[in-house]
């Protein structure tokens, strides 16, 4: 059984540093990780500017990206996210990985013209995502 070992040893050694960094990269900086993204819209695009006077632009933001096992702890997500990842990877791939969702929001102030011609200033809760987590 020495042949395969010898043939393995004869293979040109790829610089380990490159392989090693590639290997760790998948853990240290997983690609398109779960994070907050901007989405700036103006109410004129929705043709609502005839009744929403302010703000002119609105950025509700959204969460997008993967929730790899290694990064589970990074978002303040519950330990359950880690467990779900392990189930997905080792027991049953039909169980999905945790999802990347907003963890906290900030309110939005809106100035609107009402159907009867009156003008209203209102502050609405939970209109802008401010942080993401894996759930």
């Amino acid at each position: 059984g020495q042949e395969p070992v010898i043939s393995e040893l004869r293979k040109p050694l790829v610089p380990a540093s490159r392989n090693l960094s590639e290997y760790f990269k998948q853990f240290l900086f997983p690609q398109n990780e779960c994070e907050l993204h901007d989405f700036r819209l103006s109410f004129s695009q929705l043709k609502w500017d005839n009744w929403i006077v302010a703000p002119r632009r609105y950025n509700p933001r959204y969460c997008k990206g993967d929730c790899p096992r290694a990064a589970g702890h990074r978002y303040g997500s519950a330990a359950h996210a880690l467990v779900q990842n392990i189930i997905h990877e080792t027991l049953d791939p039909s169980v999905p990985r945790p999802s990347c969702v907003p963890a906290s929001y900030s309110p939005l102030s809106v100035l609107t013209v009402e159907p009867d011609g009156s003008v209203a200033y209102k502050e609405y809760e939970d209109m802008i995502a401010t942080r993401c987590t894996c759930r």
Partner: protein
Amino acid sequence: SQASRGEAQIAASAELEFEAEPWSSLQPVDGKDPSGLLPPLFKVLSDGPGGAPRLQPDSRALLYMKKLYKAYATKEGIPKSSRSHLYNTVRLFSPCAQHKQAPGHQATGILPSADLLFNLDRVTAVEHLLKSVLLYTINNSVSFSSAVKCACDLLIKEPKSSGKNLPGAPHSFTFNSQFEFGKKHKWIEVDVTPLLQPLVASNKKIDMSVNFTCTREQQRQPSARDSPFHMALLAPPSLILYLNDTSAQAHHSWHPLHGARRPAQGPDQKSKLAAYPVGEEAAEDARISRRRR
């Protein structure tokens, strides 16, 4: 056996009724939002712009509300944390009907008194009145060196059904204001909270007549500079209501978890507060668990 069979039938029919009951009471009659709670923003977010055509607001009123918006929120629409007030809703109503009673008198600054009708249908049951103000837009081309003193006689009338005025003399109160004129548009706010507080919650229409008189405090000879008191009223006053929307969708800057103080509870809200000890308990638990950590 006859009696027991009868009782069993009665019980069965009662049960059937009970099962039928809850659905009919929950099903909305017109298929729309039964509680009327959803503010227009959410209605549009949920079922698209559509909707009936809108009446256009008075341009000066809109200008005032835009200034208010800039004072309360950033350009991106985030409520400024520096503001100390407790209202999360401000509604401005222009009078939907106005009958002039007595003409004004520009030389002495008596403004034309008028009969004003405000339609408050947009105020929802969850919006509690904190303050109400009559807003006059004054355009004045003359700057005065001396202060101006104004008196306002307000008569609030019973809703049309009774057709008679509220008992007692017209509500009148005087307020002193130092008006610095010179800007194109100037607003005068007359606080009418004590008068409207009992009405806003119960009435959807408020009918009032307002008599507004302003005179200069020093009665010295008018110099060439102080030409007669040209106080031309640009428009009948608007009514502004500062409200606290208690629904879940509205932002409550005083929320215990935000650390600010809770507003003074009105008598009728104490019971509601007792009904929701959860907020207090949750905040207490948070404090205890934080201390324990």
